[in-house]
């Protein structure tokens, strides 16, 4: 269990690292060949890296840098904290969820760009490619979800552990006439006979003690006489 969670925590770091790295890779590229020349647009999630169209296509970066880095920070911080504060494990789930949302948004952004360029009705088709950055972000989101699930604690173990430490109470269902656990059935009649006989035997030696009582009152009488 501990190894599973430790493995989960390490994977959370891996996912966070991948997410941050993804923001610095090419998010998408647009390429077109006009009169034998190749014009290319390329952008990371932060800036436009190369724009041979000089802004004519009105393209811009897909803004997933900040959310991805924020998610990675939450995940990394929670993975560190969770070694001390178990409740912090929730953060890896939050970060993984955010990463999934961001990755999906990035894919939608690339699709939107393809759509936008199609509407221009250009004589030469634009070749829009999803970059390594978006692909890596999807991988980071996938790793993030898996690691976050591994990182969690299954509740069955939580419930069973305190039960072993505490007092265990067996509650018997059914009516009261049942034999209690670990007990033998009580045989009522034969035992009663023996118990009546046994006390009678010790009563016989008690007999001599009775005569002693009358002697006791005589003793104080002697000093009076």
């Amino acid at each position, binding site marked *: 269990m501990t190894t599973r969670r430790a493995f989960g925590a390490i994977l959370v770091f891996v996912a966070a690292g991948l997410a941050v790295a993804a923001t610095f890779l090419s998010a998408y590229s647009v390429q077109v060949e006009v009169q034998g020349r190749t014009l290319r647009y390329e952008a990371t999630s932060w800036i436009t890296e190369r724009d041979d169209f000089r802004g004519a296509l009105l393209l811009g970066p897909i803004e997933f840098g*900040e959310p991805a880095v924020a998610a990675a920070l939450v995940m990394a911080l929670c993975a560190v904290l969770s070694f001390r504060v178990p409740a912090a494990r929730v953060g890896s789930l939050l970060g993984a969820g955010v990463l999934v949302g*961001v990755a999906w*948004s990035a894919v939608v952004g690339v699709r939107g760009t393809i759509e936008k360029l199609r509407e221009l009705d250009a004589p030469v088709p634009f070749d829009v490619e999803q970059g390594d950055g978006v692909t890596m972000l999807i991988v980071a989101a996938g790793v993030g*979800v898996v690691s976050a699930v591994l990182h969690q604690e299954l509740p069955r173990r939580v419930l069973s552990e305190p039960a072993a430490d505490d007092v265990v109470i067996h509650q018997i269902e059914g009516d009261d006439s049942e034999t209690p656990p670990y007990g033998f059935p009580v045989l009522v009649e034969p035992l009663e006979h023996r118990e009546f006989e046994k006390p009678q035997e010790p009563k016989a030696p008690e007999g001599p003690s009775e005569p002693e009582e009358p002697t006791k009152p005589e003793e104080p009488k002697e000093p009076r006489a």
Partner: protein
Amino acid sequence: MIDRRKIAALLLILGAALAVVGSFEDTYRTIYRGFGPDQSMTTTLWIVTLDPPQGDPRDAYQALGWPVVIAAVLMVVGAVLTTRQRVAFVGKPVAMGGAGALAGIVFTYLLQVQREAKTISEWPVENGRSNVLDILGGMYVIGAAAIIGLVGAGLAQRRQQEPVEEADEEEVVVHQLGNDDDTPPFGIAIPDDEQRETP
């Protein structure tokens, strides 16, 4: 404890409902004043409507309708599962993941719209007028949905340690005394042998 669980589930469902409703509301409108008459484009998370109209409304560039709906569905499923004791341990991660995904989508969308506002303000215009990007109601609705969803998911997590106590309250309560010398609970203090003999 039951109240808090219900509050968390209600917040999650409220957030999910707001997100779906907000996705159909207008989130922003851009007005281009570059060439010829003004043209405005009103965007939801699904479609763009042009004014003056040019044919059918087309898909939005940031067509985040489906991702938002799926995140909302996850949140609702998580909220429902957290109210059942048996499957609460599945519900909590699902709720947190769904709320996180919605927050990620909304955060990215917000930044993307900001980027677009910056881009269109740099476009060439006539007469010294400028292109405008107005944020509309839908944006605030999905923003609120994301925050409410996160709060709900956070509240749903917090009672993780409480079910153990809750189960104890309903079942047999066992008091364990730390010391054998103590007076048992509800009992009368038994005087020591010396005290009994002195009178």
